[in-house]
């Protein structure tokens, strides 16, 4: 048993942390997210080409640094600390992992493009009626000769406005919530028949409603077995879930730190409000939630390689705990700041917004409690 990081992992964290504190200075970030593009494409390029960060988790054989889930977690925790809007999770964690799992010519072509920063992949899995169940799908893909024809509507697809490719879940068979009959496609985002409504999200990211109208894609866009992709989809979503929990740990870090600093400056009744025991104990509770979130994220990261049901139980335990923690730390950070906390002026409110959306991404507390219970405490 050993819970220490390697030198390489420490180096990844340090390098990234230094780079992001320059490129994601708070004022600068606010300008970026308000710009037309909603981001600075140069940051992604630099992450790929100057820092080699996008390859950290790929094997050396694939052209990466030989890392894995721990590297994803380190990178996303640092991203969380600066509220980065980079599409790391859909591109590197989700698409990278799906391509690695499936292999073949498409993987050989796409992985270098991901590591090099040329490809951005958005993960189009959610649908308006499906809530958090990845099997609840109305989007269809019909085989017609040497191609598939996609029809449907994907909801709140993060990073879709920037994407070169879309990773799409669709039904090639089965009924709306059946586990069988689900397939996964990686397709060019500019394929004819795809239309988008782009919008900013309330936490400063960009997303789209994506519509597929008779979108014809070649048969080799299919990742894995036709109709049998759900286990793979669940696996990559679990990896994404843990990565977003790591991001939450970074966000909570700043919410907690910001609250400590503010209470030491802010004076009421003639003393810094940090001297009040009721606030001290609340900040201790926030600290404990954050610490336990670190522990759960590490636990789930280390269990991502276990058999399906053990992995799912660990990830759901993690997300359920981290969702609650993010809510608690976020709400109490705002409450402790008082009025200034609910303005756009201070960074704290923007961390709160991100924490709030993370609670629901890749499954809410309730969704993951249900999944945990079905696996660990079955009737």
């Amino acid at each position, binding site marked *: 048993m050993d819970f220490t990081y390697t030198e390489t992992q420490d180096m990844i964290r340090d390098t990234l942390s230094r780079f992001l504190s320059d490129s994601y200075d708070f004022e600068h970030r606010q300008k970026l997210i308000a710009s037309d593009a909603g981001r600075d494409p140069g940051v992604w390029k630099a992450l790929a080409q100057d820092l080699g960060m996008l390859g950290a988790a790929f094997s050396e054989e694939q052209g990466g640094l030989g890392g894995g889930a721990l590297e994803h977690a380190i990178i996303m925790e640092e991203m969380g600390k600066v509220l980065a809007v980079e599409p790391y999770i859909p591109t590197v964690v989700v698409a990278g992992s799906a391509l690695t799992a499936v292999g073949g010519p498409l993987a050989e072509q796409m992985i270098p493009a991901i590591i090099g920063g040329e490809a951005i992949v958005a993960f189009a899995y959610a649908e308006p009626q499906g809530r958090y169940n990845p099997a609840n799908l109305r989007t269809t893909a019909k085989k017609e000769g040497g191609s598939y024809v996609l029809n449907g509507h994907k909801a709140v697809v993060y990073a879709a406005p920037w994407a070169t490719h879309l990773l799409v879940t669709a039904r090639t068979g089965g009924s709306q919530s059946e586990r069988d009959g689900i397939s996964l496609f990686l397709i060019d985002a500019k394929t004819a028949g795809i239309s988008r409504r782009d919008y900013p999200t309330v936490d400063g990211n960009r997303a789209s409603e994506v519509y597929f109208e008779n979108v014809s894609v070649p048969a080799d866009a299919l990742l894995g077995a036709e109709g049998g992709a759900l286990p793979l989809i669940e696996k990559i979503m679990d990896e994404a879930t843990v990565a977003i929990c790591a991001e939450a740990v970074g966000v909570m870090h700043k919410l907690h730190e910001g609250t*400590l600093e503010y209470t030491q400056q802010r004076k009421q009744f003639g003393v810094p409000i940090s001297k009040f025991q009721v606030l001290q104990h609340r900040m*201790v*509770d926030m600290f404990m939630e954050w610490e*336990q979130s670190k522990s759960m994220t590490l*636990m789930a990261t280390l269990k991502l390689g276990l058999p399906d049901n053990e992995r799912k139980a660990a990830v759901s*335990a993690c997300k359920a*705990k981290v969702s609650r923690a993010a809510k608690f730390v976020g709400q109490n950070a705002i409450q402790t700041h008082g009025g200034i906390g609910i303005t756009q002026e201070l960074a704290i409110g923007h961390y709160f917004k991100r924490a709030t959306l993370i609670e629901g991404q890749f499954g809410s507390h309730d969704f993951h409690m249900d999944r945990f219970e079905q696996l660990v405490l079955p009737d």
Partner: protein
Amino acid sequence: MEMEFSPEELAFQQEVRTFIAENYPAQLRGKQDEGDELSKEDFLAWHKVLYEKGWIAPAWPVEYGGTGWTPTQRFIFSEETARAECVKLMPFGLTMVGPVIYTFGTPEQKARFLPRILSGEDWWCQGYSEPGAGSDLASLRTAAVREGDEYIVNGQKTWTTLAQHADWGFFLVRTNKDAKPQEGISFLLIDMKTPGITVRPIITLGGEHEVNEVFLENVRVPADQLVYEENKGWTCAKFLLAHERTGIAGVASSKRGLEKVKEIARTEVDGDKPLLSNAFFKRKVAELEIDLTALEFTELRGLAGPNANKGPGPESSLLKIKGSEIQQRLTELTLEAVGHYGAPYFRGFDEGDNAHPIGPDYAHRAAPTYFNMRKTTIYGGSNEIQRGIIAKMVLGL
């Protein structure tokens, strides 16, 4: 980063498991299974087995009788003893006064007391709290006045756990009334048979005689039983407090407790289904299990993480807070689970009484245990005091 045990660690785990299976006192196991109250001899029976094996004080330095195990081995050992439901070793000698003596004591004190702590010959108790000094321990008033080669001690201690069995006690006493509260306290070792000591039972909510009041009236204590320097007792006390919190998370025994709650909730029937299938009860069990996992990995991060060799710091307050909350929630769920049969008051078996108590076996102790375990968030520095420690030492507030 590696979550699994190494082959050497797995072999060690097997060794511990086999040792417990072959050497745990059968009579003690029987009493535990029956839910009988355990005597001093019962507690000492397991202590002696471990002492003879050389495993009685894993955390001590090897020169004083420790095992030289890695933190992971110690973790495995505590997991295995909890899994096998071995009785808990009394902490007063082994994890409290022992480390104080080998850290601060004179060579004579070490030679005199440490071997008898290891062997179990001396049963220790802790004379800290007073009626007027609980969370504000430094305000204690029990006074020791030096007269020649002796201290004359007068005062009253309270909440003294199992003092009725104790041969020796370690006491915090005031030796300087004029100094700042923390700077006038000394750490004295007192033979509990010394004239002038009276131990009176305090019966707690579950009906147990676990704690006592200790009255000291002109108790004459040889001066060579002062540990460290006069008026430096607070240093020993703070050291001990940090030591006491190691392992206080109680992860291994709470894991076993959780399994028991599940067993009960599978046995109890709610309508036409097991209680564990009731969505509300199930959610509480699931949340407890998740919180226990969070506690376990928080402990492991400290144990085998980058700061593994620095020893327990103020972060251990987190383990105490969350660990004690979980211990209480387990007893709360057990009491909820047994439903009506939490009510009958079972006083234990009278001599020659074979009548089976009312309700299922697992229900007899549910309420008394729930009542008793309210202590966990109060003792060892209440959870409010622990929050104060984190606020000051970790957050710098």
